């Protein structure tokens, strides 16, 4: 009895010793800064002074009561997130279906659609800025099409579309890869059985392929959700929040308040709200999508 208790105790300490370095690393890199963030979110601090002034929940009150910048950027982010999630997933599934048909050019197509993903978003933003401004100018002159004459970064609605299009262009390869893997794991015999039962290609897709693709959809929507709520670098390099401050996302709004207006306390409060929002939304999304998954 005593011996087994001693053994268990020894195991526990051994286990604790092995996990200790990781716990220290995670604490230093994550938990301690996080606790400090919570403290700073309740202070009025300019990031330089040594004595942040404690103001309680005033920052949060101000954010929710009278911050039009935050409300506007939140609305922008919600719009962007919904459109991005839907479009990137639908397009990636469609592309994956084509790439799963064993065409001769499949290796080239896969590489082609994945290449933008290896570029950094800041550089992608600069490339597209160049194309939207100078490139579209020349294209418009040589083709005469009026879409190239529009001011793609200069009007609020079109700037939103540009940001959406550029981020989809950059990241579709990633979702494509997830869906290709998902499609390859859909068993061939089920599709054959459906064909024998007289199902057409559409029926086969909606009744067999799509339900069995649910795990891939869950992970893709999850990634798209977290990435689109945190959207920052592409806006920074493409429009810089313009025209007229209409394309600020929440992350960019936090950046502006914290590092440009030097409101560190206020910015951290906003960041904390964003963190909680992302947490709640992703938990809800995962719970909802997990429930709909089926086994083959």
């Amino acid at each position, binding site marked *: 009895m005593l011996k087994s208790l001693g053994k268990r105790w020894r*195991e526990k300490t*051994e*286990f604790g010793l*092995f*996990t200790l*370095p*990781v716990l220290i*690393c*995670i604490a230093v*890199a*994550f938990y301690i800064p996080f606790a400090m963030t919570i403290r700073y979110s309740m202070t009025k601090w300019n990031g330089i002074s040594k004595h942040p002034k404690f103001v309680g929940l005033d920052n949060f009150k101000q954010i929710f009561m009278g911050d039009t910048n935050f409300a506007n950027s939140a609305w922008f982010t919600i719009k962007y997130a919904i459109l991005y999630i839907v479009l990137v997933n639908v397009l990636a599934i469609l592309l994956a279906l*084509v790439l799963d*048909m064993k*065409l*001769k*050019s499949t290796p*080239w*197509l896969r590489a*082609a*659609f994945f*290449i*933008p*993903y*290896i570029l*950094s*978003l*800041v550089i992608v933003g600069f*490339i*597209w800025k*160049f*194309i939207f401004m*100078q*490139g579209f*100018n*020349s*294209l418009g002159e*040589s083709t005469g099409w009026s879409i190239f004459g529009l001011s793609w970064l200069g009007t609020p609605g079109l700037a939103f579309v540009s940001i959406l299009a550029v981020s989809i*262009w950059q990241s579709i390869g990633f979702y494509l890869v997830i869906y290709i893997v998902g499609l390859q794991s859909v068993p061939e015999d089920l599709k054959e059985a459906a064909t024998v039962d007289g199902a057409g290609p559409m029926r086969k897709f909606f009744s067999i392929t799509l339900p069995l693709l649910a795990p891939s959809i869950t992970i893709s929507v999850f990634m798209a959700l977290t990435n689109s709520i945190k959207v920052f*670098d592409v806006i920074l390099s493409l429009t810089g929040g313009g025209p007229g401050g209409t394309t600020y996302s929440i992350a960019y709004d936090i950046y502006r308040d914290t590092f440009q207006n030097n409101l560190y306390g206020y910015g951290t409060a906003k960041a904390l709200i964003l963190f909680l929002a992302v947490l709640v939304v992703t938990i809800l999304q995962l719970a909802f999508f997990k429930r709909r998954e089926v086994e083959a």
Partner: protein
Amino acid sequence: MNTNRKAGRIILEVVMVILSLLFLYPLFLTIINSLKSFSEVMTDVIALPKHLVFGNYSYVWKFINYPKLFLNNFVIRCRSSGYCVHFIHSSLQAGTDEIQTERGDLFPLHYADADSVPIDHADRSANR
């Protein structure tokens, strides 16, 4: 029926290849323009360069200290929490394997976590 289907596949293939070329056109444009002189870029963006100019590359190479920057990247990568945690994690994995065999449900998050770190890392480095 069969030839019809074959023709459809070939058409689809051609359409997809054209689509992928259009998809990559911004990158081609960037590469083409990097080989032009500044005045040529300003007059016509989509034209091919009249004569290749490598001046842009030598200019950038001279004014941006690439070896130093790559070293910086490397150092930051190695020191950043991700790799640190991952490294300790994998060494930990070797250490706890024997305990794991004794107690099945030792640390359910353990494997998931060790997997997620490099993925998260690759994702982040791709986005920066």
